[in-house]
């Protein structure tokens, strides 16, 4: 947990960021057990800080976003990852020891199945609950917010989430639909009436499930904390990224309305959609600030989904996708945080839009998938740190020689001025171990400045 200094309110964004970086990089209270692990921790945190500051670090940082590759490599199933913490820990340790990445990358594949079972979660399917035991969790879109519920969401997003979204998204919490607004607690005579619904059987059931899931989440936090602590102690790898938030368009498009519905809303009720997007900005900022502060980490991970090339025209991107994302980024930067944008798909048409001078230089990091990296360097170089683009298809179907050449070519052509990190285009799931080794080894040897 990051504790802001007493003069936080008076600090400019830059100083806030320095304070967050200093707390993240401090060795005090961290589990690194040996001087070597401490040295690694310091070197690796400085390395990524340098690229955000658009400087040349000691070498190109290695920042692939690890997915279920570690499980496949460790010989365990996607089901084991979500249900068997001992097996998970073993596989996670093995991957980190064998590959020695620069950072302890938060694993998107590791989530506690028991928590979702207890909540009877509907928005995703996971191993044994809708996907085969060998396949990780996947999202199933539906209209969890109906077309006529924009006004409710805009007026009271948290109330909508609690009484509208959650009872639909978590079958075990269906009783929450009966909960009154918490504003009904503002005077003594109102409180009994406020409490009554919570005593009704369906609501009691929902709270019981909620508490059971919370206990399971705590158990999971203990297990994953122990695994990560062990890796930090032994290898000195700093955890990255820390916080999490999403672009407002994706918040509404992914799990509230779904792709089809939000894209029809762009035509059928654009004014409401725009109002909802604007209303979502402070929520997205708050979510990023809260999660990053809780993790004592200056980075906020933001996967970008529905604004990629091909999803909508540039005119629509500028109208519907970008303004609320830009406001979110500025909100995070002002809070002293570094947005870590994970740009899925292609962004070739969007580079001119995202390189927005109103976002301060040296304040964001962008990792790209199928975007032309020469163009990225031209448009973003000197303004923001960037990386990515090692094709996941090549990591899986290519050869080590091919991967080595690709990594060298990236370093030769776009890494020269610093402000650059080596990363795969997408989350690393299926990949040949020898190809991943080729990527890591080449970056470590050839990427030295």
């Amino acid at each position, binding site marked *: 947990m990051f504790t802001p200094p007493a003069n936080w309110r008076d600090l400019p964004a830059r100083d806030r960021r320095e304070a967050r970086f200093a707390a993240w990089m401090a060795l005090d209270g961290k589990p690194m057990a040996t001087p070597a692990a401490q040295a690694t921790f310091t070197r690796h945190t400085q390395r990524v800080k340098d690229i955000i500051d658009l400087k040349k670090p000691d070498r190109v940082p290695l920042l692939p976003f690890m*997915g*279920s590759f570690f499980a496949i490599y460790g010989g365990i199933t996607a089901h084991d990852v979500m249900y068997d913490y001992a097996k998970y820990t073993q596989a996670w340790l093995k991957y980190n020891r064998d590959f020695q990445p620069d950072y302890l990358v938060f694993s998107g594949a590791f989530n506690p199945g028991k928590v979702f079972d207890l909540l009877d979660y509907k928005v995703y*399917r996971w191993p044994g609950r*809708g*996907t*085969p035991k*060998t*396949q*990780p969790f*996947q999202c*199933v*879109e539906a209209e969890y917010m109906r077309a006529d519920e924009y006004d409710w969401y805009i007026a009271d997003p948290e109330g909508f989430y609690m009484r509208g979204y959650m009872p639909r998204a978590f079958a075990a919490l269906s009783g929450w639909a009966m909960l009154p607004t918490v504003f009904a607690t503002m005077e003594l005579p109102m409180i009994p009436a406020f409490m009554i619904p919570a005593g009704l059987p369906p609501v009691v059931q929902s709270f019981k499930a909620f508490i059971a899931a919370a206990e399971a989440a705590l158990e999971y936090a203990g297990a994953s904390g122990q695994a990560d602590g062990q890796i930090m102690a032994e290898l000195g790898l700093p955890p990255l990224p820390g916080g999490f938030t999403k672009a407002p368009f994706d918040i509404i498009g992914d799990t509230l309305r779904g*792709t*089809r519905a939000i*894209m*029809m809303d*762009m*035509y*059928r009720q654009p004014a409401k959609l725009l109002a909802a997007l604007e209303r979502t900005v402070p929520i997205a900022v708050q979510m990023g600030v809260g999660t990053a502060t809780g993790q004592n980490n200056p980075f906020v991970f933001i996967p970008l989904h529905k604004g990629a090339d*091909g*999803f*909508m*025209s540039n005119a*629509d991107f500028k109208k519907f996708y970008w303004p609320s994302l830009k406001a979110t980024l500025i909100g995070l930067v002002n809070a002293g945080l570094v947005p870590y944008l994970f740009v*899925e*798909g292609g962004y070739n048409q969007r580079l001119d839009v995202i390189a927005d001078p109103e976002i301060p230089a040296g304040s964001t990091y962008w990792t790209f998938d*199928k975007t032309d990296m020469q163009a990225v360097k031209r448009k973003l170089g000197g303004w923001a740190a960037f990386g990515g683009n090692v*094709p*996941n*298809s*090549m990591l*899986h*179907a*290519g050869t080590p020689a091919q991967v080595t050449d690709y990594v060298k070519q990236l370093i030769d052509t776009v890494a020269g001025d610093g402000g650059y990190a080596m990363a795969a285009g*997408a*989350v*690393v*799931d*299926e990949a040949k171990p020898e190809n991943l080794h080729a990527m890591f080894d080449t970056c470590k040897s050839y990427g030295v400045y």
Partner: protein
Amino acid sequence: MSDELVKAIADMQEEEALALTKKLLDGGAEPIAILNACRAAMEIVGQRFEKNEYFIPELILAGEMLKTISAEVKPRLKQSVDGKKGAKVLLGTVQGDIHDIGKDIVSFMLDVNGFEVKDLGVDVPVAKFVEEIKTYQPAVVALSGFLTLAYTSMKETVEAIAAAGLRQQVKIMIGGGTMDQQICAYAGADAFGKDAMAAVALAKEWTGAK
């Protein structure tokens, strides 16, 4: 007036398109003329998509308009118009992957371009593709996958089709989020298509359809 309908649909004027449909039908227009207008409009939508003027919102909205208009028209049709469908395409998202949006758009664009499409849905077992090729006898098999985890399933599906001795009778295309030329070669498919119009172009090329 059906020119106006073509224009309304092609220009994404949903309310106007639906109002015009009602007006035309109430005025005694032939239901088949309405469907022909829809087809003409979809051709324009497809062209605009190819020229990067239209994107996914427009394809989805066009699909919605078509669905609503068809529902209006179909009860008034004297005979079925399904008789003149073109070559058969078998489509599905490969085993282990449950993503459907891209697949559905491909299905829709193939359908409006005159192909007969059988959509097997998502998470389609390898054996199901093999069995359906035997019974449905498609000219083209289209494999969809969004996840990098679909790489192996793509390959296994193509291998199973070959092992069943069916590889020569079908052309196989792959597409979806993380697919590319390298995975096409890896899986042993015939082509990779980057979007729905590429799927249509490939299917036309392979079947000689216009």
